């Protein structure tokens, strides 16, 4: 075989391998970046609604108690979530994380976070349910001094932790391990209507 031709094949082959490896790396990087942006956006959506709800706990509730139920995986509260929504009464809102796996995504770690909102609590049929995919959701409650409250009426601060993962893995290792992009939010909110 011609030496020049063989050398050309070797160099060309190396170049081809290099381009393929680069293309693979570029593809992974693109997938990771896209996954991360989508995941952050997913978390941002949940956080926007959650912050609005938490700041409205107890608002316009009249003489009723602010909290109906408060556990580490769920809480139900009274409060007027939106002004000028045509409803004079308070709304009933529930946030609850279930152990139900979310089949809407391919991520096997995703569980369902449910938000139930009823503008007219006297008519249960008006309840609207929203479902979100999360990896973890946890709620802690504190009284005005930062201690664990003895009863629901003592709750002034609500601390929420939300962890979400990308719907799809951004990388699958050779051993089959799938890596998901994670985004996290944790905040302790003092609801204005619970202070006084």
């Amino acid at each position, binding site marked *: 075989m011609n030496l*020049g031709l063989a050398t050309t094949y070797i160099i060309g082959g190396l*170049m081809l391998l290099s381009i393929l490896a680069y293309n693979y790396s*570029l593809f992974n990087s693109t997938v990771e*970046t896209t996954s991360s*942006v989508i995941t952050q956006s997913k978390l941002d959506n949940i956080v926007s609604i959650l912050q609005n709800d938490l700041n409205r706990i107890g608002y316009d509730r009249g003489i009723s108690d602010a909290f109906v139920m408060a556990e580490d995986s769920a809480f139900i509260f009274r409060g007027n979530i939106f002004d000028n929504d045509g409803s004079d009464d308070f709304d009933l809102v529930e946030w609850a994380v279930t152990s139900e796996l979310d089949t809407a995504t391919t991520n096997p770690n995703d569980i369902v976070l449910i938000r139930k909102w009823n503008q007219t609590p006297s008519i249960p049929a008006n309840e609207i349910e929203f479902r979100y995919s999360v990896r973890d959701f946890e709620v802690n409650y504190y009284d005005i001094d930062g201690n664990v409250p003895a009863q629901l009426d003592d709750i002034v601060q609500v601390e929420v*932790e939300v962890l979400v993962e990308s719907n799809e893995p951004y990388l699958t290792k050779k051993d089959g391990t799938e890596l998901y992009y994670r985004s*996290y939010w944790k905040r302790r909110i*003092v609801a204005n209507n619970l202070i006084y």
Partner: protein
Amino acid sequence: MNDYSDVLYLTAAMVIYSFLTINTSRSFLSTSETVIRSDVEYRTIIRAQDVIEQVKLVQRADENMLNPNHIDYMFAGYPVTDRETYGYNDEYTDTFIIDASSEYIDEGDPLVRRYKITVNVINEEVDPSTEVDLIFIKSFER
């Protein structure tokens, strides 16, 4: 002579190809860093907001908590370093340096006393570190 020119062409092509790949890789690295930084900044802002939430809890009877010259001054021990673990199995850690101060705003208003609360939070998990400043005005009716 023809062989030498081929080698030169090939060398030039490889140099150009290398430049292109390096620049593209840099661009992607920069994008990844931006995404990570935005996550870190997100958490840093939350820490500053948490401090302000605690200021919201201060009631009129406890106004001295915002007076830097009083023994009850709530920011006397600041700056503080706070390590926070998070994640499903607490597998991640963030370190925040939180500084806060309060300053009385003398407006000469006999009915209202206002304090300017400045919160500064630094997260050194990324290089360069992420820093957030938040200002909150707390008012007390006399």
